[in-house]
């Protein structure tokens, strides 16, 4: 044992940890590497303003991020401040792991009306506030400009599509027209061979989960579906026939008609990989992926508005991230200073300039648009949707999120794989989901 002790002291010397400084260091975690440079810049600016506070940023990818956070809670080693997610924070809040900002907001009279509408309320419950918004996202169509040109479809047409679950509307027509088999016939032709598709009209990400953020939510909600009655509702409406017919339309479009890439083909590497590999003309994705598409596609990528549904509305989920403070932090005041700075126009404008995500403050949004324009991408499809009245719906936040996730994933996968009809699967899943609240 003595040997071991000397050994460890030698080791301690070799892995010399220099944490000797008079300033306080605030630990900050985030998961998205694309956003890291922007926040590193914010941290620099912040330390200039507050020389006695250093920000130590740690970035860990999504898959391992939450295990790290949770174990940190258990062991008392969680970061002071961390980027939080809507599907995770209710659980943390309910168990008293994250700080309620409400008293501080009052004390420091923080302006909470500077954010895009709805973002701030996503992070509140019963008068408590668990995060200050820092960014937002919406969904749009991402398309391959070359393929559209070849099919002779103008961007104007693409931005004015209509959809309904009965015959798919002009949206389905365009998808069919953009689908090609190996003989060069498109989906509108009589000779189209659906067993030999070379190019799909639409690479749907499917999203077999309770939200369907990029896969089906924009169709279902434009068809009149709603998840529940608002924040922290205790009852879901997944058995709504308007959702079932939407899901069934998607499934039939892929398995019966062959215009949509089958779910099994995107399960492994994702619809985004298929898109940049040139397997299809369009996909739908969230605004946080803009940069990824531009960097990874060999061809010119365009961004277009989602179709208008039977309700006469074009809809997209409106979602955003915020920063939370861990209850066990020993530096709450410094952490709060940092969180306030992260949610302030000063930092949000920096984030906007970097263009990785859309900041939660309006001035930053315009900077982001300008940055993308400079790089030759028109991403206004995302911002137009965000700003149109009544166009967006919020991410459904309730308790039991992860168990609902498990139930809905199984149910929707069974539908998308063609094993169960949508109406049947969703009815059963909805009963299970609502039983969680009893």
């Amino acid at each position: 044992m003595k040997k071991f002790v000397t050994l460890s002291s030698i080791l301690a010397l070799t892995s010399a940890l220099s944490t000797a400084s008079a300033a306080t260091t605030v630990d900050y975690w985030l998961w998205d590497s694309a956003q890291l440079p922007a926040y590193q810049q914010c941290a620099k600016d912040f330390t200039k303003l507050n020389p006695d506070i250093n920000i130590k940023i740690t970035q860990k990818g999504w898959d391992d991020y939450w295990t790290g956070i949770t174990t940190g809670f258990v062991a008392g080693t969680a970061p002071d401040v961390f980027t939080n997610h809507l599907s995770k924070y209710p659980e943390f809040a309910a168990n008293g792991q994250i700080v309620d900002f409400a008293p501080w907001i009052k004390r420091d009279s923080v302006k909470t009306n500077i954010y895009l509408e709805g973002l701030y309320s996503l992070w509140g419950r019963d008068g408590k506030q668990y995060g200050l918004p820092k960014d937002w996202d919406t969904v749009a169509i991402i398309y391959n400009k070359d393929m559209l040109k070849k099919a002779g479809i103008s961007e104007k047409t693409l931005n004015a599509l209509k959809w309904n679950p009965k015959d798919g509307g002009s949206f389905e027509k365009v998808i069919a027209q953009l689908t090609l088999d190996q003989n060069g016939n498109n989906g509108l032709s009589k000779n189209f061979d659906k067993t030999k598709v070379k190019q799909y009209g639409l690479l749907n990400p499917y999203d077999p989960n309770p939200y369907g953020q990029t896969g089906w939510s924009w169709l279902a909600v434009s068809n009149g579906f709603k998840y529940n009655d608002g924040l922290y509702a205790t009852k879901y409406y997944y058995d709504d026939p308007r959702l079932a017919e939407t899901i069934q339309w998607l499934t039939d479009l892929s398995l019966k008609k062959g215009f949509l890439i089958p779910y099994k083909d995107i399960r492994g590497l994702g619809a985004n990989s298929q898109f940049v590999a040139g397997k299809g003309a369009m996909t739908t994705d969230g605004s946080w992926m803009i940069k990824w598409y531009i960097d990874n596609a060999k061809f010119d990528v365009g961004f277009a508005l989602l179709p208008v549904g039977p309700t006469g509305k074009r809809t997209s989920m409106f979602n955003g991230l915020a920063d939370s403070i861990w209850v066990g932090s020993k530096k709450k005041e410094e952490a709060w200073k940092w969180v306030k700075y992260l949610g302030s126009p000063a930092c949000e404008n920096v984030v906007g300039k970097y263009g990785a995500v859309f900041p939660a403050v309006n001035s930053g949004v315009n900077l982001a648009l300008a940055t993308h324009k400079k790089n030759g991408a028109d991403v206004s499809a995302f911002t137009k949707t965000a700003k149109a009245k009544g166009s967006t719906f919020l991410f459904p936040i309730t308790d039991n999120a992860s168990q609902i996730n498990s139930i809905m994933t199984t149910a929707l996968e069974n539908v998308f794989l063609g094993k169960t009809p949508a109406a049947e699967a969703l009815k059963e899943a909805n009963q299970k989901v609502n039983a969680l609240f009893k």
Partner: protein
Amino acid sequence: MNTTEATPETPARGTVNRSARLEALTGLAFILPALIGFVLFYMYPALRGLWISFTDWNMLREPTFVGIENYRQVFQDEKFWNALWITFKYVLLNIPIQTILGILLAVAMDRVVKSTVIRGLMILPYLLSNVLVALVFLWLLDPSLGIVNAGLQALGLPKQDFFASTDQALPTVAFVNIWRHAGFTALLFYAGLQSIPRSVYEAAKIDGASEGQMFWRITLPLLRPVTVFVVVTSIIGSFQIFDTVAVATNGGPADATKVLVYYIYENAFAFFKMGYATAMSMILFAIILIFTVLQLKFFRADQSDLA
């Protein structure tokens, strides 16, 4: 588990007490470092786990004692039984092929291949981590972008969905793990082969025995202690399959690969039901224990045919 020696020593009468005591002290001194590691990093957490399994604990608040409630719920949990069934299927798919392949590879390394480089290449897959292997195969076997399906189609064969099909996902996971571990098991067997005296083979050769005959009559029987070790440890590992499933299939599609440890992790880190997850872990532990005891009984694990 009977682990006594086949031939206990009987030292001379007069020295019995002193030398026996000395030997006992020596033995304890020998196991002390390992024992410290064991108590600190295995026994204590396991006992704590046993306690946690009788509580309702979401990791974020203090545990509350609920008695056998978790266990009662596990026995009524359809998903648990389903996950256990899938795990059994996986073990059955994985172990026989992996073990046989391991023995064959080891014998080939021992009797045929003389080059270290080629031996090294044979266990190359084990050098990649579990997670990476799963990611590589996700690419290789992708229905639409993967090279394996490109090859199948070039040969005019139908496209296979592998990880994305409810029927093929589990065998695919098993195949991927066999690919990675065959070399690992081969190494263990190879080490075992080295302890078989060459003279035995030479004698058989003089008698004109073929390689095949030598394998069945000499190699296999003499390899028994190692075979026991390999089979026992592989089954223990196989019951705890997790990484490949977590990376390549997420327990799907439609729960087709939701093996027990995956379900346990889901309960712990997604549902925050750590008490329940730990109770399931304890049941899994009991199942593996029963299996191992039966195997050791079956193999008469402790006697080597050499000594």
